[in-house]
Protein backbone atom coordinates (compact mmCIF):
# COMPACT_ATOMS: atom_id res chain seq x y z
CA UNK A 1 0.00 0.00 0.00
CA UNK A 2 1.31 3.42 -0.84
CA UNK A 3 0.27 7.06 -0.63
CA UNK A 4 -2.07 8.54 1.97
CA UNK A 5 -3.82 5.32 2.85
CA UNK A 6 -0.53 3.48 3.20
CA UNK A 7 0.76 6.18 5.52
CA UNK A 8 -2.33 5.99 7.69
CA UNK A 9 -2.43 2.21 7.89
CA UNK A 10 1.28 1.43 8.14
CA UNK A 11 2.73 4.36 10.06
CA UNK A 12 0.03 6.35 11.74
CA UNK A 13 -2.37 3.76 13.15
CA UNK A 14 0.14 1.58 15.01
CA UNK A 15 1.54 4.66 16.75
CA UNK A 16 -1.89 6.06 17.52
CA UNK A 17 -3.11 2.72 18.89
CA UNK A 18 -0.10 2.68 21.20
CA UNK A 19 -1.04 6.20 22.24
CA UNK A 20 -4.68 5.28 22.68
CA UNK A 21 -3.72 2.46 25.01
CA UNK A 22 -1.65 4.87 27.10
CA UNK A 23 -4.55 7.35 27.14
CA UNK A 24 -6.89 4.66 28.44
CA UNK A 25 -4.35 3.73 31.09
CA UNK A 26 -4.34 7.38 32.15
CA UNK A 27 -8.08 8.00 32.01
CA UNK A 28 -9.52 4.96 33.76
CA UNK A 29 -7.56 5.14 37.03
CA UNK A 30 -7.81 8.93 37.09
CA UNK A 31 -11.58 8.77 36.64
CA UNK A 32 -12.00 6.23 39.44
CA UNK A 33 -9.56 7.87 41.86
CA UNK A 34 -10.91 11.33 41.05
CA UNK A 35 -14.47 10.26 41.73
CA UNK A 36 -13.62 8.74 45.12
CA UNK A 37 -11.53 11.77 46.04
CA UNK A 38 -14.50 13.93 45.08
CA UNK A 39 -16.88 11.92 47.25
CA UNK A 40 -14.44 12.12 50.16
CA UNK A 41 -13.76 15.84 49.77
CA UNK A 42 -17.42 16.67 49.13
CA UNK A 43 -18.52 14.74 52.21
CA UNK A 44 -15.89 16.42 54.38
CA UNK A 45 -16.93 19.84 53.13
CA UNK A 46 -20.60 19.31 53.93
CA UNK A 47 -20.60 16.96 56.91
CA UNK A 48 -17.06 17.13 58.22
CA UNK A 49 -15.96 18.60 61.51
CA UNK A 50 -13.96 21.81 61.24
CA UNK A 51 -10.64 20.01 61.11
CA UNK A 52 -11.78 18.14 58.00
CA UNK A 53 -13.76 20.92 56.40
CA UNK A 54 -11.07 23.51 55.93
CA UNK A 55 -8.44 21.22 54.40
CA UNK A 56 -11.10 19.96 51.98
CA UNK A 57 -12.11 23.52 51.10
CA UNK A 58 -8.49 24.47 50.59
CA UNK A 59 -7.88 21.43 48.39
CA UNK A 60 -10.77 22.31 46.11
CA UNK A 61 -9.84 25.99 45.95
CA UNK A 62 -6.23 25.21 44.98
CA UNK A 63 -6.90 22.47 42.48
CA UNK A 64 -9.70 24.31 40.74
CA UNK A 65 -7.69 27.51 40.80
CA UNK A 66 -4.35 26.34 39.36
CA UNK A 67 -4.30 25.61 35.63
CA UNK A 68 -4.01 21.86 35.14
CA UNK A 69 -0.83 22.22 33.11
CA UNK A 70 0.79 24.12 35.96
CA UNK A 71 -0.23 21.34 38.34
CA UNK A 72 1.33 18.72 36.07
CA UNK A 73 4.57 20.73 35.85
CA UNK A 74 4.68 20.90 39.63
CA UNK A 75 4.23 17.13 40.02
CA UNK A 76 6.72 16.25 37.33
CA UNK A 77 9.32 19.02 37.29
CA UNK A 78 8.79 20.57 40.70
CA UNK A 79 8.73 17.61 43.08
CA UNK A 80 12.25 16.37 42.17
CA UNK A 81 13.51 19.60 43.77
CA UNK A 82 12.39 18.19 47.11
CA UNK A 83 13.61 14.72 46.31
CA UNK A 84 10.39 13.15 45.06
CA UNK A 85 10.63 11.63 41.61
CA UNK A 86 7.44 10.59 39.83
CA UNK A 87 7.46 8.86 36.46
CA UNK A 88 5.66 10.78 33.70
CA UNK A 89 2.80 8.29 33.95
CA UNK A 90 2.43 8.52 37.73
CA UNK A 91 2.77 12.31 37.70
CA UNK A 92 -0.03 12.50 35.14
CA UNK A 93 -2.39 10.16 36.99
CA UNK A 94 -1.75 12.03 40.25
CA UNK A 95 -2.35 15.35 38.54
CA UNK A 96 -5.52 14.26 36.77
CA UNK A 97 -7.00 12.52 39.83
CA UNK A 98 -6.42 15.46 42.13
CA UNK A 99 -7.76 18.00 39.68
CA UNK A 100 -10.73 15.88 38.70
CA UNK A 101 -11.49 15.13 42.36
CA UNK A 102 -11.79 18.84 43.07
CA UNK A 103 -14.41 19.19 40.35
CA UNK A 104 -16.26 16.02 41.36
CA UNK A 105 -16.42 17.32 44.91
CA UNK A 106 -18.41 20.31 43.69
CA UNK A 107 -21.07 18.08 42.14
CA UNK A 108 -21.12 15.83 45.21
CA UNK A 109 -21.38 18.81 47.51
CA UNK A 110 -24.34 20.21 45.60
CA UNK A 111 -26.05 16.82 45.70
CA UNK A 112 -25.39 16.41 49.42
CA UNK A 113 -26.90 19.81 50.12
CA UNK A 114 -29.99 18.86 48.13
CA UNK A 115 -30.79 15.93 50.44
CA UNK A 116 -33.69 16.91 52.66
CA UNK A 117 -33.15 17.33 56.39
CA UNK A 118 -35.88 14.77 57.07
CA UNK A 119 -33.65 11.99 55.70
CA UNK A 120 -31.02 12.84 58.29
CA UNK A 121 -33.55 13.08 61.08
CA UNK A 122 -35.09 9.74 60.19
CA UNK A 123 -31.67 8.10 60.18
CA UNK A 124 -30.84 9.57 63.57
CA UNK A 125 -34.23 8.53 64.87
CA UNK A 126 -33.57 4.86 64.08
CA UNK A 127 -30.34 5.14 66.04
CA UNK A 128 -27.73 5.46 63.29
CA UNK A 129 -24.45 7.16 64.06
CA UNK A 130 -23.36 10.13 62.00
CA UNK A 131 -21.03 8.01 59.89
CA UNK A 132 -23.71 5.37 59.28
CA UNK A 133 -26.14 8.09 58.27
CA UNK A 134 -23.71 9.46 55.72
CA UNK A 135 -22.69 6.06 54.35
CA UNK A 136 -26.06 4.36 54.17
CA UNK A 137 -28.58 7.13 53.73
CA UNK A 138 -27.03 10.34 52.45
CA UNK A 139 -24.33 9.19 50.02
CA UNK A 140 -26.40 6.61 48.13
CA UNK A 141 -28.88 9.35 47.37
CA UNK A 142 -26.34 12.09 46.73
CA UNK A 143 -24.24 9.98 44.36
CA UNK A 144 -27.33 9.29 42.27
CA UNK A 145 -28.10 12.97 42.08
CA UNK A 146 -24.48 13.86 41.30
CA UNK A 147 -24.03 11.27 38.59
CA UNK A 148 -24.90 13.42 35.56
CA UNK A 149 -22.43 16.10 36.69
CA UNK A 150 -19.72 13.61 37.55
CA UNK A 151 -20.21 11.90 34.21
CA UNK A 152 -19.65 15.21 32.52
CA UNK A 153 -16.42 15.68 34.47
CA UNK A 154 -15.21 12.29 33.24
CA UNK A 155 -15.89 13.36 29.66
CA UNK A 156 -13.73 16.44 30.28
CA UNK A 157 -11.03 14.24 31.76
CA UNK A 158 -10.83 12.26 28.53
CA UNK A 159 -9.94 15.41 26.71
CA UNK A 160 -7.62 17.01 29.23
CA UNK A 161 -5.72 13.74 29.49
CA UNK A 162 -4.03 14.98 26.31
CA UNK A 163 -1.96 17.32 28.50
CA UNK A 164 0.06 14.33 29.71
CA UNK A 165 2.38 14.59 26.77
CA UNK A 166 3.58 17.96 28.13
CA UNK A 167 5.21 16.00 30.96
CA UNK A 168 6.57 13.45 28.45
CA UNK A 169 3.94 10.81 29.02
CA UNK A 170 3.33 9.97 25.39
CA UNK A 171 -0.32 9.19 24.92
CA UNK A 172 -2.64 9.65 21.95
CA UNK A 173 -1.98 13.33 21.33
CA UNK A 174 1.75 12.87 22.00
CA UNK A 175 2.10 10.08 19.46
CA UNK A 176 0.19 12.18 16.97
CA UNK A 177 2.45 15.16 17.61
CA UNK A 178 5.60 13.10 17.03
CA UNK A 179 4.39 11.74 13.71
CA UNK A 180 3.01 15.07 12.57
CA UNK A 181 6.29 16.85 13.28
CA UNK A 182 8.22 14.20 11.38
CA UNK A 183 5.94 14.15 8.36
CA UNK A 184 4.36 17.58 8.42
CA UNK A 185 1.01 15.87 7.85
CA UNK A 186 -0.66 17.83 10.63
CA UNK A 187 -4.10 17.89 9.09
CA UNK A 188 -4.34 14.17 8.43
CA UNK A 189 -2.79 13.15 11.74
CA UNK A 190 -4.87 15.38 13.96
CA UNK A 191 -8.07 14.66 12.04
CA UNK A 192 -7.57 10.99 12.87
CA UNK A 193 -6.59 11.81 16.46
CA UNK A 194 -9.73 13.91 16.82
CA UNK A 195 -11.92 11.11 15.54
CA UNK A 196 -10.36 8.69 18.04
CA UNK A 197 -11.13 11.09 20.94
CA UNK A 198 -14.65 11.42 19.62
CA UNK A 199 -14.98 7.64 19.67
CA UNK A 200 -13.59 7.50 23.20
CA UNK A 201 -16.05 10.12 24.39
CA UNK A 202 -18.93 8.31 22.70
CA UNK A 203 -18.03 5.02 24.33
CA UNK A 204 -17.66 6.73 27.71
CA UNK A 205 -21.04 8.48 27.37
CA UNK A 206 -22.65 5.19 26.52
CA UNK A 207 -21.03 3.46 29.50
CA UNK A 208 -21.97 6.28 31.87
CA UNK A 209 -25.53 6.09 30.59
CA UNK A 210 -25.54 2.38 31.39
CA UNK A 211 -24.32 3.08 34.92
CA UNK A 212 -27.02 5.70 35.39
CA UNK A 213 -29.64 3.23 34.19
CA UNK A 214 -28.38 0.61 36.59
CA UNK A 215 -28.56 3.02 39.51
CA UNK A 216 -31.84 4.60 38.56
CA UNK A 217 -34.69 3.86 40.92
CA UNK A 218 -38.16 5.38 41.11
CA UNK A 219 -37.86 8.88 42.47
CA UNK A 220 -34.32 9.34 41.14
CA UNK A 221 -34.95 9.38 37.41
CA UNK A 222 -32.76 11.42 35.07
CA UNK A 223 -34.37 13.28 32.32
CA UNK A 224 -31.92 12.95 29.52
CA UNK A 225 -32.62 14.75 26.30
Amino acid at each position, binding site marked *: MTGELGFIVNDLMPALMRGLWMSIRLIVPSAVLGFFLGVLAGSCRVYGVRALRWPADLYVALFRGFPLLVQLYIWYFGLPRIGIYLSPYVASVVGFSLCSGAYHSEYIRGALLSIKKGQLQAAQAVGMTRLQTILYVILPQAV*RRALPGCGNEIIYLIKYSSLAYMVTCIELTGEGKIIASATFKYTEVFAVVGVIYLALVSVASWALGKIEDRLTIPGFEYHRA
Partner: protein
Amino acid sequence: MTTATDSAPVLTVEGIRKSFGNKEILGGVDLSIRRGEIKVLIGPSGAGKSTLLQSINFLVMPDAGRICLEGRPVDPSDRKGLCLYRQQVGMIFQEFNLFDHLTALGNVEIGLVRVKKMKRSQARERAMAELERVGLGVHAHKYPAELSGGQKQRVSIARALALDPKVMLLDEPTSALDPELIGEVHAVIRDLGAAGMTMIMATHQIGFARALADEIIFMENGVVIEQGPPDKILDDADCERTREFCTKITELGGR
Protein backbone atom coordinates in the same frame (compact mmCIF):
# COMPACT_ATOMS: atom_id res chain seq x y z
CA MET B 1 -58.50 2.44 74.85
CA THR B 2 -56.01 0.79 77.11
CA THR B 3 -55.77 1.28 80.79
CA ALA B 4 -52.36 1.82 82.25
CA THR B 5 -51.59 -0.59 84.99
CA ASP B 6 -47.83 -0.51 85.35
CA SER B 7 -47.09 2.15 87.89
CA ALA B 8 -43.45 2.98 87.09
CA PRO B 9 -43.24 5.42 84.19
CA VAL B 10 -41.54 4.27 80.96
CA LEU B 11 -40.52 7.77 80.04
CA THR B 12 -40.27 10.94 82.05
CA VAL B 13 -39.55 14.40 80.77
CA GLU B 14 -38.56 17.01 83.34
CA GLY B 15 -38.25 20.73 82.84
CA ILE B 16 -37.40 20.69 79.13
CA ARG B 17 -36.50 24.11 77.84
CA LYS B 18 -35.54 25.18 74.36
CA SER B 19 -34.94 28.53 72.73
CA PHE B 20 -34.17 29.31 69.12
CA GLY B 21 -32.19 32.54 69.13
CA ASN B 22 -33.73 34.53 71.94
CA LYS B 23 -37.18 33.13 71.31
CA GLU B 24 -38.25 30.64 73.93
CA ILE B 25 -40.10 27.75 72.28
CA LEU B 26 -40.31 25.36 75.24
CA GLY B 27 -40.58 26.95 78.65
CA GLY B 28 -40.08 24.00 80.97
CA VAL B 29 -42.23 21.02 80.05
CA ASP B 30 -42.82 18.05 82.37
CA LEU B 31 -44.40 14.85 81.22
CA SER B 32 -44.46 11.27 82.26
CA ILE B 33 -45.96 8.24 80.63
CA ARG B 34 -46.53 4.71 81.89
CA ARG B 35 -46.42 1.48 79.95
CA GLY B 36 -49.32 1.16 77.55
CA GLU B 37 -50.48 4.71 78.05
CA ILE B 38 -51.40 6.96 75.15
CA LYS B 39 -51.03 10.71 75.54
CA VAL B 40 -52.10 13.14 72.89
CA LEU B 41 -50.61 16.62 72.55
CA ILE B 42 -52.89 19.31 71.23
CA GLY B 43 -52.45 23.02 70.91
CA PRO B 44 -52.32 25.80 68.37
CA SER B 45 -49.74 25.93 65.61
CA GLY B 46 -46.42 27.10 67.02
CA ALA B 47 -47.23 25.86 70.52
CA GLY B 48 -44.08 23.76 70.48
CA LYS B 49 -45.53 20.27 70.03
CA SER B 50 -43.06 19.23 67.34
CA THR B 51 -40.17 20.81 69.18
CA LEU B 52 -41.13 18.89 72.31
CA LEU B 53 -41.36 15.54 70.51
CA GLN B 54 -38.06 16.16 68.75
CA SER B 55 -36.43 17.16 72.02
CA ILE B 56 -37.55 13.88 73.56
CA ASN B 57 -35.29 11.93 71.22
CA PHE B 58 -32.74 14.72 70.92
CA LEU B 59 -33.27 15.54 67.26
CA VAL B 60 -33.50 18.96 68.85
CA MET B 61 -31.04 19.42 71.71
CA PRO B 62 -32.89 20.81 74.71
CA ASP B 63 -31.18 23.68 76.53
CA ALA B 64 -32.19 22.36 79.93
CA GLY B 65 -34.11 19.53 81.47
CA ARG B 66 -33.83 15.80 81.84
CA ILE B 67 -35.26 12.77 80.10
CA CYS B 68 -35.34 9.33 81.69
CA LEU B 69 -36.16 6.04 80.03
CA GLU B 70 -37.30 3.46 82.55
CA GLY B 71 -35.81 5.55 85.30
CA ARG B 72 -32.38 5.95 83.71
CA PRO B 73 -31.45 9.48 82.65
CA VAL B 74 -30.28 9.87 79.06
CA ASP B 75 -26.99 11.63 78.48
CA PRO B 76 -27.07 13.03 74.93
CA SER B 77 -23.33 13.76 74.96
CA ASP B 78 -22.70 10.01 75.14
CA ARG B 79 -23.04 9.20 71.44
CA LYS B 80 -23.32 5.44 71.85
CA GLY B 81 -25.86 5.73 74.61
CA LEU B 82 -27.86 8.20 72.56
CA CYS B 83 -28.02 5.82 69.57
CA LEU B 84 -29.13 3.05 71.87
CA TYR B 85 -31.77 5.27 73.43
CA ARG B 86 -33.10 6.37 70.04
CA GLN B 87 -33.59 2.76 68.99
CA GLN B 88 -35.97 2.39 71.90
CA VAL B 89 -37.95 5.50 71.05
CA GLY B 90 -39.77 5.21 67.73
CA MET B 91 -40.36 8.44 65.86
CA ILE B 92 -43.04 9.05 63.27
CA PHE B 93 -42.79 12.24 61.26
CA GLN B 94 -45.49 14.30 59.65
CA GLU B 95 -43.65 14.07 56.32
CA PHE B 96 -42.93 10.31 56.71
CA ASN B 97 -39.22 10.76 55.94
CA LEU B 98 -38.80 7.36 54.37
CA PHE B 99 -35.34 6.73 52.93
CA ASP B 100 -36.04 7.55 49.30
CA HIS B 101 -33.41 5.24 47.82
CA LEU B 102 -34.68 2.11 49.57
CA THR B 103 -37.75 -0.04 48.99
CA ALA B 104 -40.37 -0.36 51.69
CA LEU B 105 -38.62 -3.52 52.81
CA GLY B 106 -35.22 -1.81 52.70
CA ASN B 107 -36.54 1.00 54.87
CA VAL B 108 -37.63 -1.38 57.58
CA GLU B 109 -34.59 -3.61 57.24
CA ILE B 110 -31.87 -0.99 57.39
CA GLY B 111 -32.20 -0.27 61.10
CA LEU B 112 -32.06 -3.96 61.90
CA VAL B 113 -29.01 -4.59 59.73
CA ARG B 114 -26.98 -1.44 60.36
CA VAL B 115 -28.01 -0.50 63.87
CA LYS B 116 -28.98 -3.79 65.49
CA LYS B 117 -26.38 -5.69 63.44
CA MET B 118 -28.86 -8.43 62.69
CA LYS B 119 -28.10 -10.96 59.94
CA ARG B 120 -29.55 -9.92 56.59
CA SER B 121 -31.82 -12.94 56.22
CA GLN B 122 -33.12 -12.62 59.75
CA ALA B 123 -33.66 -8.88 59.31
CA ARG B 124 -35.54 -9.48 56.09
CA GLU B 125 -37.89 -11.88 57.80
CA ARG B 126 -38.56 -9.48 60.66
CA ALA B 127 -39.01 -6.51 58.30
CA MET B 128 -41.47 -8.47 56.21
CA ALA B 129 -43.46 -9.37 59.31
CA GLU B 130 -43.65 -5.70 60.30
CA LEU B 131 -44.80 -4.70 56.82
CA GLU B 132 -47.49 -7.35 56.95
CA ARG B 133 -48.55 -6.05 60.33
CA VAL B 134 -49.29 -2.66 58.77
CA GLY B 135 -50.93 -4.32 55.77
CA LEU B 136 -48.18 -3.66 53.23
CA GLY B 137 -46.72 -7.09 52.59
CA VAL B 138 -47.62 -6.90 48.90
CA HIS B 139 -45.91 -3.53 48.49
CA ALA B 140 -42.62 -4.57 50.11
CA HIS B 141 -40.59 -4.10 46.95
CA LYS B 142 -41.92 -0.70 45.99
CA TYR B 143 -39.91 2.50 46.40
CA PRO B 144 -41.32 5.47 48.33
CA ALA B 145 -41.97 7.29 45.06
CA GLU B 146 -44.34 4.46 44.12
CA LEU B 147 -46.35 4.52 47.35
CA SER B 148 -49.27 6.70 48.41
CA GLY B 149 -48.91 8.99 51.41
CA GLY B 150 -50.88 6.64 53.61
CA GLN B 151 -48.74 3.69 52.58
CA LYS B 152 -45.57 5.69 53.22
CA GLN B 153 -46.68 6.54 56.70
CA ARG B 154 -47.49 2.90 57.40
CA VAL B 155 -44.02 1.90 56.19
CA SER B 156 -42.53 4.46 58.54
CA ILE B 157 -44.52 2.96 61.39
CA ALA B 158 -43.24 -0.50 60.44
CA ARG B 159 -39.70 0.88 60.36
CA ALA B 160 -40.06 2.16 63.91
CA LEU B 161 -41.77 -1.00 65.16
CA ALA B 162 -39.03 -3.26 63.83
CA LEU B 163 -36.68 -1.89 66.47
CA ASP B 164 -39.03 -2.89 69.31
CA PRO B 165 -39.46 0.60 70.73
CA LYS B 166 -40.56 1.11 74.29
CA VAL B 167 -42.29 4.36 73.36
CA MET B 168 -43.47 5.80 70.09
CA LEU B 169 -43.54 9.52 69.35
CA LEU B 170 -45.91 10.51 66.56
CA ASP B 171 -45.83 14.05 65.23
CA GLU B 172 -49.07 14.74 63.38
CA PRO B 173 -48.88 11.41 61.56
CA THR B 174 -51.82 12.14 59.30
CA SER B 175 -51.74 15.86 58.66
CA ALA B 176 -49.82 15.57 55.40
CA LEU B 177 -52.35 13.07 54.06
CA ASP B 178 -55.34 13.43 51.78
CA PRO B 179 -58.52 12.94 53.80
CA GLU B 180 -59.34 9.59 52.23
CA LEU B 181 -55.94 8.19 53.30
CA ILE B 182 -56.15 9.22 56.94
CA GLY B 183 -58.32 6.27 57.94
CA GLU B 184 -55.80 3.56 57.04
CA VAL B 185 -53.09 5.21 59.14
CA HIS B 186 -55.46 5.79 62.05
CA ALA B 187 -56.41 2.12 61.90
CA VAL B 188 -52.76 1.09 62.24
CA ILE B 189 -52.23 3.44 65.17
CA ARG B 190 -55.40 2.20 66.83
CA ASP B 191 -54.16 -1.39 66.50
CA LEU B 192 -50.87 -0.38 68.05
CA GLY B 193 -52.69 1.13 70.99
CA ALA B 194 -54.78 -2.00 71.37
CA ALA B 195 -51.58 -4.06 71.38
CA GLY B 196 -50.36 -2.01 74.33
CA MET B 197 -47.86 0.33 72.68
CA THR B 198 -46.92 3.37 74.72
CA MET B 199 -47.40 6.48 72.60
CA ILE B 200 -47.14 10.24 72.66
CA MET B 201 -48.84 11.78 69.67
CA ALA B 202 -49.36 15.33 68.49
CA THR B 203 -52.45 15.73 66.34
CA HIS B 204 -55.14 18.13 65.25
CA GLN B 205 -57.55 15.22 64.63
CA ILE B 206 -59.69 15.75 67.67
CA GLY B 207 -62.11 12.87 67.11
CA PHE B 208 -59.23 10.45 66.85
CA ALA B 209 -57.59 11.92 69.93
CA ARG B 210 -60.76 11.49 71.93
CA ALA B 211 -61.16 7.87 70.92
CA LEU B 212 -57.55 6.91 71.49
CA ALA B 213 -56.05 8.98 74.27
CA ASP B 214 -55.82 8.09 77.92
CA GLU B 215 -54.89 11.66 78.51
CA ILE B 216 -54.88 14.84 76.48
CA ILE B 217 -52.26 17.49 77.04
CA PHE B 218 -53.04 21.01 75.95
CA MET B 219 -49.96 23.09 75.15
CA GLU B 220 -49.57 26.71 74.28
CA ASN B 221 -46.55 29.00 74.00
CA GLY B 222 -44.20 26.22 74.98
CA VAL B 223 -45.86 25.21 78.23
CA VAL B 224 -48.46 22.67 79.26
CA ILE B 225 -51.63 24.56 80.13
CA GLU B 226 -53.78 21.66 81.19
CA GLN B 227 -53.90 17.89 81.01
CA GLY B 228 -56.49 15.25 81.79
CA PRO B 229 -58.86 12.63 80.39
CA PRO B 230 -60.16 13.42 76.89
CA ASP B 231 -63.74 14.18 77.88
CA LYS B 232 -62.62 16.50 80.64
CA ILE B 233 -60.16 18.48 78.48
CA LEU B 234 -62.25 18.55 75.31
CA ASP B 235 -65.67 19.27 76.81
CA ASP B 236 -65.20 20.64 80.28
CA ALA B 237 -61.75 22.12 80.72
CA ASP B 238 -60.89 24.14 83.81
CA CYS B 239 -58.79 26.67 81.99
CA GLU B 240 -60.46 29.33 79.87
CA ARG B 241 -57.81 29.14 77.14
CA THR B 242 -58.17 25.34 76.85
CA ARG B 243 -61.94 25.64 76.52
CA GLU B 244 -61.62 28.27 73.85
CA PHE B 245 -59.18 26.16 71.78
CA CYS B 246 -61.14 22.93 72.20
CA THR B 247 -64.43 24.53 71.26
CA LYS B 248 -62.90 25.92 68.12
CA ILE B 249 -61.19 22.71 67.12
CA THR B 250 -64.16 20.43 67.87
CA GLU B 251 -66.37 22.67 65.77
CA LEU B 252 -63.90 22.37 62.93
CA GLY B 253 -62.99 18.71 63.21
CA GLY B 254 -66.21 17.29 64.64
CA ARG B 255 -66.15 14.74 67.37
